[in-house]
């Protein structure tokens, strides 16, 4: 159970995250939506502790993670894997090693520096790559892969950490619709099969509605919506994105990462027509 209590983060005079308060039970798939600058990334980074909180505390299963230091902190970061918009792989190292780097915290530094990985770790990495369908590129340098493949490598690396939580910071924002679909489906699958809590930042409404069982909407650092996808009415969306931003939120969906899934119909009335790459695969849209 991940619990945020009055979490605030300031950058100089600016408040990026303002008094955020919520509880995420184990195994939930949560989407965090909001316009750019709403504090979504800062929130995720505070949970993983890439940045510190200014005020408030974050607890995970009784451990106050917002105040961990040293090895304890690194252990928490291992348990709380993170996936980034820009993948953050090591481009000049091969894919398999990149995936095995997810084990860094489980191993001795000396063994890591000498590139000594055990057979089990290699088997684990290959299994993770197979699960994501990219075992064929395992020996290529990560930098030579396409964006969608790189993001799947990043997910495989996250799986290697054997995490309890996976945080995904705009995982599909720089992917084409087809790869975005694959990546979101993989996250959903990990959430459902392994029971790992997934918290993902998304900038489009329909992706969040399609894949997440709970949606948290942020506006100017505050949580302005927290509920199931069906509760996300047009009025709620207006509150998250503002009257003018709402239009943008939809048009963005058209141009970049519009996704569709099992959901039958949109709870929001007047949605502009969107390009749905998955339509052929999904009989609901055929």
């Amino acid at each position, binding site marked *: 159970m991940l619990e945020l209590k009055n979490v605030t983060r300031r950058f100089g005079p600016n408040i990026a995250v303002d008094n955020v308060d919520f509880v995420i039970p184990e195994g939930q798939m949560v989407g965090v939506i909001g316009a750019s600058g709403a504090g979504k990334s800062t929130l995720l980074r505070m949970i993983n502790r890439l940045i510190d909180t200014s005020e408030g505390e974050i607890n995970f299963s009784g451990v106050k993670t917002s105040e961990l230091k040293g090895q304890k902190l690194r252990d928490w970061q*291992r348990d709380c894997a993170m996936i980034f918009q820009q993948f953050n792989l*090591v481009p000049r190292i091969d894919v398999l090693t990149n995936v095995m780097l997810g084990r860094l915290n489980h191993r001795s530094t000396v063994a890591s*520096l000498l590139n000594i990985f055990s057979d089990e770790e290699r088997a684990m990495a290959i299994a993770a790559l197979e699960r994501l369908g990219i075992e064929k590129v395992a020996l290529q340098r990560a930098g030579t892969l396409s964006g969608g493949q790189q993001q799947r490598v990043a997910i495989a690396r996250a799986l290697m950490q054997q995490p309890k939580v996976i945080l995904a910071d705009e995982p599909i924002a720089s992917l084409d619709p087809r790869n975005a679909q694959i990546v979101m489906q993989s996250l959903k699958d990990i959430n459902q099969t392994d029971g790992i809590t997934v918290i993902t930042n998304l900038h489009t409404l329909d992706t969040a509605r399609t894949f997440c069982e709970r949606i948290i909407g942020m506006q100017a650092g505050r949580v302005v919506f927290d509920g199931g996808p069906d509760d996300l009415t047009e009025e709620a969306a207006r509150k998250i994105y503002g009257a003018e931003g709402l239009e943008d939120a939809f048009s963005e969906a058209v141009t970049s990462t519009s996704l569709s899934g099992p959901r039958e119909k949109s709870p929001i009335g007047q949605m502009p027509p969107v390009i749905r790459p998955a339509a052929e695969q999904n009989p609901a849209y055929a």
Partner: protein
Amino acid sequence: MLTTQPNNPALHIDAEGNYDLDSHFKQLRSQKRLYTFIGLAVLGAALFFSLWFANETNSGKFLDRLPHLFDFVGDMVPRDGWEVWRALFDLPSPYFDGSLQYNYPEGRVYITQNIYVPEYIYKMVETLNIAILSTLIGFIFGFLLCFLAASNLTTKRWLRFTVRRILEVLRAFPEIVIAGFFLAIFSLGPIPAIIAVSIHTIGALGKMFFEVVENADMKPDEGLRAAGGNWIERVWFGIVPQILPNFLSYALLRLEINVRASTILGAVGAGGIGEVLRLSISRGHEAKTLAIILILFSTIVCVDQLSAYLRKRIVGNQAFEFGA
């Protein structure tokens, strides 16, 4: 007041209240020309007077001594063209008269009973070894220190400050000064040269290295940090793979510089080719001097070409493979 506020368009409003761009432009242009002219005049005057001063204070007047420029070159002409090659490969000379000047075989370094390495080639290898070893030592220590000096990896200000000052001190003194100091301690030989060149190399490479590190892409590092990697692991896997080609390129460039530096150090008593060059010039052994200059020149050209080729390959590859 026009000249003090040349950029103020308000001063170029005519009677009807229109902004006169043309007159404004002309005014700015003439002012710029005036400044250029004054600057050139001051530069010319400074140059003239400093040259005049240098000539006056010199013991021999420049123009009086100019005809002697080629005397030295005249002294360097060997008795015949083959003498240079005999000197280079330590072959007996037909002009041998018992003096050191024509006693080329004397310097042979025998490996077995019959096989020898010519003296100057042996000395050149010694100089090259000094350069290679010091570059290697400089690379290792520069590599270890640079991450502590880089602001994107070392957040502790005092540590970064200390390491940067250490690197500065190490490269502040020219090799020849450090060598003079260590020559007094260790006496003549290659050891002082190795120490001197290494110290300077640590400082010089360390600075270039940390600037490369500061330009590194931090995304891989962030990814590993979020996965719970510690500092050493993050540096080794997140930073080193991307900066290594640049490090190697700088180290090769430094090797070129160090070959010259260790040659010069030889001339002040640190062994190698520089030492024999100085001796043969001062003794007036024309063929030996030419042989040494020949081997020195060709070695430096070879090292430079090889290093340029390798650097092109290393950095070229990087540019090729980063495109993701």
